[in-house]
């Protein structure tokens, strides 16, 4: 960030916050700029909700122990899913239905979810500055815009970096059906990188010793390998090379874990599996639930195919059916198991889609306003935060930036939003950049 923009930002914040907040902000700025905490007593008092002057501790008791993050890749049409505009010409053929939350309506494409909206806080006023997939996806996942000179970490890596694992024998960060260029650990230690699962029904492949190889033989192989690699690693003192040492250590530890069965969804009844829907995404949601039960802290499941430039209504209806089945089953399943209170479920996407319907019956990219949602993990369900105008074209009330949205997730997980972690080149970054959590979403 340039000095001028930092000054502008300082000014904007300072005029909005009361004296206590401003002082702590100065301390915070010093930390951000110098990477040190000047006055420890002040660290942590920066954030305030819109129109609410009371300082809020950034580090507090978390309301969410785990996060299940569902990513709608390609840009989910807000108007056809969570922010319908009945009667507007931008709505097209989609009708709205009532939900279990008073006064909150959603698209007819989401009948199962409609019955779960009492768990859900919709955020209808998310807005991004990035209108292309790669940039938008990266921004949503990292809170920073895509740059050639640094790779920023995604939320799961931040979570492990700040508060570690709850189950040390299995990875704390898992991504199912993710983008092949998922930001992962970014510049943080590769230990925080996600375990990437391709097909959830296959679970974690190759997690057992090959048939016929004895324990002793396996140990011997590892010992020989260690000796081989020592030479190479001392010759090439590079992060990527060392990264391979940590993933091998991790893999070997994982093979011995009692909790490996968490990855195997064939341990679920057929009825349970069917209820999540016969799609990789649905089965991924089921796998996410199992993983969270076994102490995995962050699980992301991706649903691709929302880039509906053509045949928007047919395609959104197909996509929404998959989401509806997966999430509409996940929420009550978590609730029944008593896991929803400690698990924050997130639905995010890179941008919405144009209110205008094109000649191809499609909708194009639209970052100006779109919908995401949070459920469980201390979030007050049954509400819709923020508003867009009658056309679904502009934020009309309580805008939430991408950074604010991510700050809200970090806040729920009790992560230190203002703690600066320097990149190897010495550049200061935080979990959600300058984002401020939306406190009104919590109960």
């Amino acid at each position, binding site marked *: 960030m340039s000095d001028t923009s930092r000054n502008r930002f300082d000014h904007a914040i300072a005029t909005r916050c009361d004296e206590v907040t401003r002082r702590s902000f100065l301390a915070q700025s010093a930390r951000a700029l110098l990477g040190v905490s000047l006055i420890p007593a002040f660290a942590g008092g920066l954030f305030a909700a819109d129109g609410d002057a009371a300082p809020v501790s950034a580090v507090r008791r978390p309301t969410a122990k785990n996060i299940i993050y569902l990513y709608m890749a390609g840009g989910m049409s807000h108007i056809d899913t969570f922010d319908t505009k009945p009667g507007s010409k931008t709505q097209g053929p989609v009708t709205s239905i009532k939900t279990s939350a008073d006064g909150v309506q959603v698209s007819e494409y989401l009948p199962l979810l409609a019955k779960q909206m009492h768990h859900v806080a919709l955020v209808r006023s998310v807005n991004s500055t990035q209108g*292309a997939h790669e940039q938008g996806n990266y921004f949503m996942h990292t809170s920073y815009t895509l740059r050639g000179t640094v790779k920023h970490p995604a939320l799961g890596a931040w979570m492990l970096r700040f508060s570690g694992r709850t189950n040390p024998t299995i990875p704390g960060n898992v991504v199912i059906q993710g983008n092949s260029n998922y930001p992962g650990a970014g510049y943080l230690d590769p230990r925080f*990188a996600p375990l990437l699962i391709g097909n959830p029904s296959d679970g974690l492949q190759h997690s057992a010793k090959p048939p016929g190889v004895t324990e002793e033989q396996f140990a011997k192989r590892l010992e020989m390998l260690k000796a081989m690699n020592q030479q190479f690693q001392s010759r090439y003192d590079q992060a990527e090379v060392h990264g391979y040492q940590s993933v091998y250590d991790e893999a070997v530890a994982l093979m011995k874990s009692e909790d490996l069965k968490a990855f195997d969804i064939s341990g679920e009844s057929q009825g349970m599996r069917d209820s999540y829907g016969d799609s990789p995404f649905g089965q991924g949601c089921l796998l996410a639930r199992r993983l969270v039960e076994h102490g995995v802290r962050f699980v992301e499941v991706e649903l691709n195919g929302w880039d509906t430039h053509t045949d928007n209504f047919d395609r959104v209806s197909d996509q929404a059916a998959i989401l509806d089945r997966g999430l509409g089953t996940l929420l009550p399943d978590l609730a029944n198991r008593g896991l929803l209170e400690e698990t924050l479920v997130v639905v995010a996407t890179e941008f919405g889609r144009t209110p*205008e319907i094109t000649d191809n019956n499609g909708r194009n990219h639209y970052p100006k306003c779109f919908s995401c949602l949070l459920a469980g993990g201390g979030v007050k369900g049954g509400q819709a935060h923020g508003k867009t105008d009658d056309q679904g074209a502009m934020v009309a009330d309580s805008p939430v930036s991408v950074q604010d949205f991510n700050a809200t997730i970090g806040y729920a997980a009790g992560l230190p939003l203002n703690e600066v972690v320097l990149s190897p080149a010495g550049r200061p970054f935080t979990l959600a950049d300058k984002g401020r959590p939306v406190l009104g979403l919590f109960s």
Partner: protein
Amino acid sequence: MRPSIRRAFALALAMTLAAPAFAAETAGRVADPSAGVARKPDIAAAATAIDALVQTCLAKHQQKPNPEIGDEVFLRRCYLDVVGRIPTSAEAIEFAKNDSPKRRRELIAKLIASEGWVSRQFDYLADLLRVESAPMKKYPGDPYIDWIKQSIRADMPYDRFVTALLTAQGRVLERGNGATGYYVRDAGMPQDNMSNTVQVFLGTRVSCAQCHDHPFDKWSRLQYMQMAAFTANVSEGPDPELVKQLRKLARSDGAPTQEEKQGLKRIADSVRLEVRGSDKDTIQLPKDYQYANAKPGQTVKAHAMFGDEIAIKHGESPRAAYAAWMTSPENPRFTTVIANRMWKRVMGLGLVEPLDNFTDATVASDPELLTHLTQLMKDVGYDLRVFEEILYNTKTYQRAVTTTEVDPGEPYYFPGPVLRRMSAEQAWDSLLTLVLPDVDERKGANAENQYATYDDMKDKTPKELWDVVTNVVDSIKKRKEIQDQLKELAAKTDDKRELAKNPLVRELRQQLQDLNEDAKSLGYAKKRQQPETDPRWKGYPRDLVRASELPSPAPPGHLLRDFGQSDRNLIENANASPAVTQALTLLNGVVDQHVLQPQSALMKSLEPISGQEPRIRATYLAILTRAPSAKELAMAMSAGAGRPNGTADLVWTLINSNEFLFVQ
């Protein structure tokens, strides 16, 4: 056989012991006499010129070049970079036996002329162009894949290759017309297609300007729209007139069933899929157009975003004019971008990074070199094979990789290439090199039977096509009935043999087979994989083929995907980061499943070798392309490697080592 192998080991060993004696030849001698092609320049002289520029730049920054590499390191690196896989033992021995001072140049020339280079080049383009086997999940992608491979094989110059993509039109399944896949990939998204085109071929990011003036670069939304006007009127999809007639026919037969509707779509989406060009060169500004320089909804004319004006000649299509502008040697970015890309492919890092974010302020780490490479690309007539061959012949390429980390954003002056992890494709193809003989020659699926279906149906009238649909739908219905009948019969007995003898069962099975043929024609029944007919690969699973021969992208969970192969969603979406699943698949999967099987090429080659030490040496040569050090040899001996059961452990260890996975 044994004596020659022994001799070769001696040679291989000599290579390690006497590395200085095998030091790189001094470049810049006489040109290869075999270089008879008109445009083919003096490779050695061209390489020397590049080295001189690199040397000047290093000196200017008070840096020294890295040491030259010995033949072993060169051999492995060269195979991995040029043909995308490690060399086999036989190939290593062949090189070790060659004591000509020109052996490196000869090896490069041999490899770059081989089918392996085609595979490697395809992998690169597939990531760059987001090539998919099933674009939009419904269209045929193999014709495009075939076309790209054929263009690489036939040395189509890069400027002509790009022109062919940008001006493609007509039926997708018409033999030789696969270039249409470029537009099919972004069907219905002409604006995204334009952003992608500008990013890939002009190294410039304009996607921001699709919606608003670019915040960091100079591009305005108006400029973007004017550029988009060149291709905005191109359309992709099944022939709309045919679709209309088919629908009419379907309705005249009463309400079409779900299956019939689906059949209609399938037939139209394949045999009548086409890219339609247009003579129109205007576009309407969107309703939310927000700047004072034009009005919302206003029609604007196509206009080049930079460089020379694009004048559309009488009778010329707007796309032809735009492609000519794009690929012109005068275009200020086109040639530089591809020269920089090829430099990165060979050296591991671009002179400009990132590759596709050029702005007016962009300065290369070595501007003189980039200017020189740009001119060189023009001089070789955009022949990428020749261009690469020159780069591989430089001393700069044939130096040790830099051992310390190169920080992103820091200028790098190329004292040597950078250390790279194998790409997913290099890793998979290298593992296969240990498993299969003649791995470069084994082919996977191609578009042949799609072309055949097309040839069969291209001249059919709508009525005839509709008959095809109803016939297929009928046969699917019948199939279902027969399958149910067979199930019932099977439920009555536990004895499978008796069941097979039942004449009714036989009759039904025969009928089913015939019906399957019908159903296959529209993709309702899975085509069974062609059985292997080539004796070289008999007994090897059909999906053990190089990455370039597998579906693009490989399915999630495949080793290729674990190692970061692009999912083809975004431009250059591959990655080489470490991941736990990679370790797991090497620890417990592919090595025991394929490499250690008795029929693997490696195990077969080790089998006749007797003696512990020769077996250890042969294992090192096959996997790491080098002889073991004395210490390594002693360690392997004491661990029992080379003995009947110990070899597996050594093979496993070497494949799992960092040294295997990184290209030094």
